């Protein structure tokens, strides 16, 4: 072997050695980067990065002027790590566990015994709740105690600053989500989606700058704006509480609707749930009866029947009939009035003023079953309103092919059929708006954080009766306000009002009982209708006549007109012929 061969061999060995080393490196690199890469990366992240929940905020519910009715707020859970619970030194003094718990109890108002159980139940555990849902000021007090084994967690919560004002509409949340009201039925608008992010921190717990990685963005919920005016809503609830309380009633409702756009300014229930303290309410009082509880409305249906008959040319305001004490129903049976009387000579206006059942049936004698049915349903009765509130009822008008001979007549004075207060408000809105029905609106819209607006109100209108019929009917109702049974208590100083009262008998098990639902529905100012107010009081004990719903109606209507700066009425009262027996 000569020298050059030797050199070549050495170079050969060296190259093989280098190649082998490089190969090992490449394999190792491949292993780390590709085969074991994800596991190592996640292990590294777990060691350094801290995962955080990015809380999305549930949207708020506001009234028409932006007053917050429901909003999300931050609350804090005070937690502890039982395995680290021990006495500690603070400012040179030794604080025992009992002392520490006493201090927390003083700061939070939580029960010391419960907290003691929480930390001693499983001493090896790393987590236990001491108390839940405290406010920031309480949290600061707890933090100031500098107890090393006490921590806190953010807990997004829901609060209702107006309490039971509109509580019947807003609804409330349970532990796992919305339970009722707007919270429930517009949950798809309001609900938030939580996101996640991670950041890395150094040994001293300080976040390493620029290390935050948002792994999933939090999406905030949209906000819902209602047409409700919380001040009027409060006033309505207040008025109901006062009057219904006086009468010993079981429940009461009131609705205020703006005539021109069908917006509901107040939809009040008494009693109404306080969403901040749901347990204080009965289950029956947690929803909105206005939408969900159908009832037999009684005589407040009559102006609608009269308007339809005027519009069809069946009657005129001066059509004079004899209202008998007993109206014999063709086909059997008879109908009476709420007061006993002989034959009364009344005009159509007189029938409304005296609220005569036999009179209205006499006026309708020429109509067929189908005509009676169409008349009632044309106002929207028998189908749910455009609001479509959670659990809204459609009421019931029996179809002409199923209705019996008696019911087709009793329906004309609001018996043997059911409606909701919302439907009645919609019908009166139509009557007040020159016969044009504008869909009842409770929700103005849902505004998402990016500015898109959804859930806008429906706007298709429907002409139910002519403007002329509407005007005439309202004038007839002004005569009801002046000469009817509740004339003394429905006056609103400065304004001309048009009303109709209703005293409905409550049926149980197919029989009418002595229980009543009393109501007054009205429109003001009569010469230029702007607001509709309907007050309904359920099962009053002391007085069971619609007269006693009058004061609440007048108070509420007066406030609505004053609050909305409606100019006092002009023009003269439209005196009409009521017939020989129409007055007194």
């Amino acid at each position, binding site marked *: 072997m000569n020298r050059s061969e030797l050199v070549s061999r050495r170079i050969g060995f060296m190259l093989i050695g280098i190649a082998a080393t490089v190969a090992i490196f490449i394999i190792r690199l491949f292993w780390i980067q590709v085969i074991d890469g994800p596991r190592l990366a996640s292990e590294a992240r777990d060691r350094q990065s801290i995962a955080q929940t990015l809380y999305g905020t549930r949207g708020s519910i506001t009234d028409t002027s932006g007053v917050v009715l429901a909003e999300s707020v931050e609350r804090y859970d005070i937690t502890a790590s039982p395995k680290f619970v021990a006495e500690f030194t603070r400012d040179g003094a030794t604080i025992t566990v009992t002392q520490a718990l006493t201090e927390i109890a003083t700061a939070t108002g939580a029960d010391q015994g419960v907290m003691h159980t929480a930390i001693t139940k499983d001493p090896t555990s790393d987590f236990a709740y001491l108390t839940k849902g405290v406010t920031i000021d309480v949290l600061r007090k707890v933090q100031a105690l500098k107890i090393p084994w006490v921590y806190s967690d953010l807990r997004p919560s829901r609060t209702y600053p107006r309490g039971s*004002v509109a509580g019947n509409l807003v609804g409330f949340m349970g532990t796992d989500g919305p339970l009722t009201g707007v919270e429930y039925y517009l949950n798809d608008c309001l609900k938030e989606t939580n996101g996640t992010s991670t950041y890395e921190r150094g040994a001293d717990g300080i976040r390493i700058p620029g290390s935050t990685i948002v792994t999933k963005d939090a999406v905030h919920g949209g906000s819902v704006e209602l047409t409700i005016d919380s001040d009027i809503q*409060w006033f309505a609830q207040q008025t109901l509480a006062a009057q219904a309380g006086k009468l010993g009633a079981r429940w009461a409702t009131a609705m205020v609707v703006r005539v021109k756009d069908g917006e509901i300014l107040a939809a009040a229930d008494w009693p*109404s749930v306080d969403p*901040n303290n749901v347990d204080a309410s009965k289950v029956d009082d947690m929803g909105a009866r206005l939408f969900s509880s159908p009832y037999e409305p009684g005589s407040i249906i009559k102006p609608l029947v009269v308007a339809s008959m005027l519009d069809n040319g069946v009657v005129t305001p001066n059509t004079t009939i004899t209202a008998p004490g007993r109206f014999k129903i063709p086909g059997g049976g008879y109908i009476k009035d709420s007061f006993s009387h002989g034959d009364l000579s009344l005009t159509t206006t007189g029938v409304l003023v005296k609220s005569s059942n036999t009179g209205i049936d006499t006026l309708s004698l020429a109509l067929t079953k189908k005509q009676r049915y169409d008349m009632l349903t044309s106002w929207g009765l028998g189908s749910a309103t455009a609001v479509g509130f959670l659990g809204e009822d459609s009421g019931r008008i029996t179809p002409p092919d199923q209705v019996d001979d008696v019911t087709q007549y009793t329906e004309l004075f609001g018996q043997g059929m059911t409606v909701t207060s919302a439907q009645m408000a919609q019908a009166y809105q139509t009557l007040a708006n020159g016969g044009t029905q504008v869909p009842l609106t409770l929700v103005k819209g849902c505004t998402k954080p990016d500015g898109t607006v959804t859930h806008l109100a429906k706007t298709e209108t429907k002409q139910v009766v002519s403007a002329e019929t509407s005007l005439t009917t309202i004038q007839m109702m002004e005569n009801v306000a002046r000469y009817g049974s509740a004339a003394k208590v429905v006056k609103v100083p*400065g304004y001309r009002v048009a009303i109709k009262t209703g005293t409905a008998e409550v049926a149980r098990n197919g029989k009418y009982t002595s229980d009543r639902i009393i109501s007054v529905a009205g429109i003001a100012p009569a010469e230029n209708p702007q607001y509709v107010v309907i007050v309904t009081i359920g099962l009053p004990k002391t007085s069971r006549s619609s007269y006693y719903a009058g004061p609440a109606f007048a*108070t509420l209507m007066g*406030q609505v007109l004053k609050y909305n700066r409606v100019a006092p009425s002009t023009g003269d009262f439209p005196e009409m012929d009521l017939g020989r027996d129409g007055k007194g």
Partner: protein
Amino acid sequence: MSAVAQTVYGYPRPQATTRPGLRAVARPRARVNVTTVTMLVTALIAIVVVRMFIYVAVESSAYEIASLHKQNVGLSRDAQFLQEQLNVLDSPQNLAAMAAELGMVSNSSPTYIQLSDGQVWGSGKPAKATTTTIAPIANDLIGAYGETPSLEGVATQSVAAVATQSESASTTPSTGIPAPSTH
């Protein structure tokens, strides 16, 4: 060797015809410029130091950012909590209770004066003081935050807000409001 290897590609290499003249040159004296070296070393140290300062500054900014961030979170929580309490304080229930406490009475039959011709609608009678209490509309939060704040300059039933009113404080009617000439 095949014929291919003999093929010459490209230009033929120029053949040196004459040997270049080579001569020995004197070795240059190694000149150590102390100033330059000092400058370079100083610059190097300066760069390291500056870099260190920047690094420290960035690091301490991280602490400052962390502390400001914490402060920001704390303040916005305070703001939120105060707003929350304010929303309860200005709830109609609370305002009504406070108004009643001040001896205010709601007049359910308002009176209107039309400024252009002085026409009066309504009875013009003041509301009577009533002893009936307002039916409370429940709000569980009022108990928590709705305490009537006692502020200086706010009247209560026993204390007037303004003890004396100076004459100059009375307002003169501005022009533009239609008003009847009354005496």
